[in-house]
């Protein structure tokens, strides 16, 4: 492996590379969840949406290039689009169910995790073996260095760049557009929104669907960029972690970006150590994202303080 030539420098480089490669799914799911939670709803089902997105992106990319005669350069992008649409369908189901009277968001969310992942595994069986065309990457490393280690570390997906741009865009949207302000009003004080003549159900429905669209795109990244294949263990709980990350990021899209990079980096500590030949104890570092999630939950949940930044009506049952 290339890291050998770099010696111990391989560790920070490995972490950097892992951050650039591995944080996009966190980013897309957490931005989607951020949008959903700003409107006062929780969508735990994004874990299922992520898997469904990964499966449908991979499947469509494979089918369209091999059977429908679409060029391998376009096929993966078609996959990304279909992943987003699949996410929207799951989002619509979640939105509809969770807005029924006396229905709890969390319970629907858990059901949707099981439904989404079950459906993805069922429909995805035929795609575990075949190779589908993947999304291209932008090779930033080639511009600055001839070292193959650096070149392979600095391969960046256009999807990731899209996600990075989306964060400030979303932050601006919440601050300086009328729909953005309405979403915040609905999430924070539905009574106030009602008095302004806003339909709470409609706003929440749209937010959940749009959020699920983003989570679907996050799934497409998993199967078409990194790790870049379809298997049932592809998400390993990243969708759920992204939900925790939104709390960590205080419902702020820009902080969602930092938190995603942080989680992506934590996730690559284990593999980076392994790459320089540390064989013992790296599994502990593999568990880093999970430990981080737990720590964040413990630190941020105090009965004595209300969480600053939390939308006021988050997760309350209507009717």
């Amino acid at each position: 492996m290339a890291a050998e030539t770099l010696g111990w420098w391989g560790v920070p480089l490995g972490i950097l590379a892992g951050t650039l490669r591995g944080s996009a799914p966190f980013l897309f799911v957490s931005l989607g969840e951020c949008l959903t939670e700003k409107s006062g709803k929780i969508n735990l089902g994004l874990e299922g949406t992520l898997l469904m997105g990964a499966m449908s992106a991979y499947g469509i990319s494979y089918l369209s290039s091999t059977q429908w005669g679409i060029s391998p350069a376009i096929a993966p992008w078609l996959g990304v689009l279909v992943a987003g649409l699949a996410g929207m369908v799951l989002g619509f189901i979640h939105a509809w169910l969770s807005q029924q009277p006396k229905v709890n968001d969390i319970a629907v969310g858990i059901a949707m995790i099981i439904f989404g992942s079950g459906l993805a595994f069922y429909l995805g069986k035929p795609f575990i073996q075949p190779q589908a065309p993947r999304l291209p990457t932008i090779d930033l490393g080639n511009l600055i260095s001839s070292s193959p280690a650096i070149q392979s570390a600095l391969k960046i997906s256009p999807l990731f760049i899209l996600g990075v741009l989306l964060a400030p865009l979303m932050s601006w949207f919440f601050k300086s557009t009328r729909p953005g302000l309405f979403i915040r009003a609905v999430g924070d004080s539905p009574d106030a929104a009602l008095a302004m003549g806003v339909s709470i159900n409609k706003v929440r429905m749209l937010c959940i669907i749009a959020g699920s669209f983003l989570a679907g795109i996050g799934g497409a990244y998993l199967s078409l960029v990194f790790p870049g294949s379809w298997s049932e263990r592809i998400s390993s709980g990243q969708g759920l972690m992204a939900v925790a990350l939104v709390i960590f990021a205080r419902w702020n899209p820009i902080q969602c970006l930092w938190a995603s990079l942080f989680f992506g980096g934590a996730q690559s500590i284990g593999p980076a150590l392994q790459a320089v030949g540390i064989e013992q104890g790296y599994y502990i570092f593999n568990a880093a994202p999970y430990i981080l999630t737990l720590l964040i939950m413990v630190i941020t949940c105090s009965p004595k303080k209300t969480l600053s930044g939390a939308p006021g009506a988050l997760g309350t049952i209507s009717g």
Partner: protein
Amino acid sequence: MTDIANQTEANVLPNAHTSATPPDLQVVNMAKHFGSLIALDNVSLHLKPGTFHALLGENGAGKSTLVKCIMGFYRADHGDVLINQQARTIDSPRDAHQYGIGMVYQHFTSVPAMTVAENLVLSRFESPNLIKWKEELEALNAFMADAPFKVPVEALVGQLAAGEKQKLEILKQLYLQSRILILDEPTSVLTPGEADEVLGLIREQVTDGKLSVLLISHKFREVTSFCDEITVLRKGKYAGTGAVKDLSVAQMAEMMMGEKREPQPVEKTPRTEAVPILQVEHLQANKDNGVPALHGLNLTVNKGEIVGIAGISGNGQRELVEVLAGQRPATGGQILVNGTPYTATRKEINQHCVFVLPEEPLKNACVAHMSVADNLALRTFDRPPQAKSFMLSFKAIRAAAANLIGTFKIKTPSPETPVGNLSGGNVQRTVLARELSSNHINLLIAANPCFGLDFAMVDYIHCQILNARNQGVAVLLVSEDLDELLKLSDRLLVISGGHFTYESEIETADFSAIGHAMCHSVH
């Protein structure tokens, strides 16, 4: 579709917001029911341009329902709204805005997590999709410079005091250029001084012919000093109208109750020797955000004594009551009841017979989605006769509820209605019924117990509290209404910035010293 509708409206009423005089508003034979309950039964009302009109009635008389029907918040069963003698359909607050009608609701409708500026811009129905903050802020600052009262534009609404929030609600309507202002109990969260200031400034606008106001209030003092005309509702029906200058307070009260009613004064019996029931020692507690709210309070309430705590809201009263009720942990000091340490566990509450009437009862003392009957049973459901070993007897719970609904005159469609659907005053009655019905009260802690209640109920509660005191109950009364405290208390304390800044027996209490202590902390 809506665009076209709006355009035609705009043609019919080109100057709804700019014309010199406010429009004439008439309500004719309005009716509304909720399930089997008839909340409004053919009610009519006439708000003449440039007048200050009061809408009076007991709790649950249908006042809020009537104005919500005018605003298009509820759809009336039948009845017409005439604006300048033309029948108009108003299906949403947005339609009402088209005709220059704006309302300040009984609860706040600003979004706490947003700034004042964001709330104001958002409230504008035709604000653009993209908000140019620089221009908006300039316009807002210009608006604030001319406004009758000021609120900081960049502040977060959640961090404003109650009085400022209420001013913001009214400012919002002026910002929207409403010509008819409907105010639903706007002063219940204000101190009497603030209320006079706010209503006085609005009165000036009315006198200048810029506004018409429809005010819902339970306070006769406000009606006699600011209003021109009244309309009275009684149990959902129209009970009369008249000019304020022709009516005495007794006549208005008679219109509301449908009968003459003599106030029944309760004498305070002289106190025997002092037996301390509640002792608070060096009590400390934090606010929600972790900042200290109580700085080592010391307090004793004796048997058969009412201790009043006065102060401007937000100076630690809420935290004190929550600590005493077991809803907030103390960070220092201790509480003794009957000489033993007290931490408000269910066992200790029962053993020492401690009862609490917290403020915002819907939030602090009720489960809004549970029925009135269940809420009335919250204290007793786990003891006979409502529970037999570990089984609950729903029959007994229902019978007890029906009984309390009768004695406390709770107006509810049925015992099964969720308590959150009741009118503001009826939620308060439900909690009162639960907390005051027991015959062995030892310590009663009450925070603003008469908030939003009509005058008859206020009298009733005051009697109940005095009766309890005469029977030897120790009462801690936290209130923002100084008149109430002066009437009921035996001893008065003033809280400011989490310290007690004044203490006196009621006979020697000095009004100006109290006012001074309310505004100054000991630092």
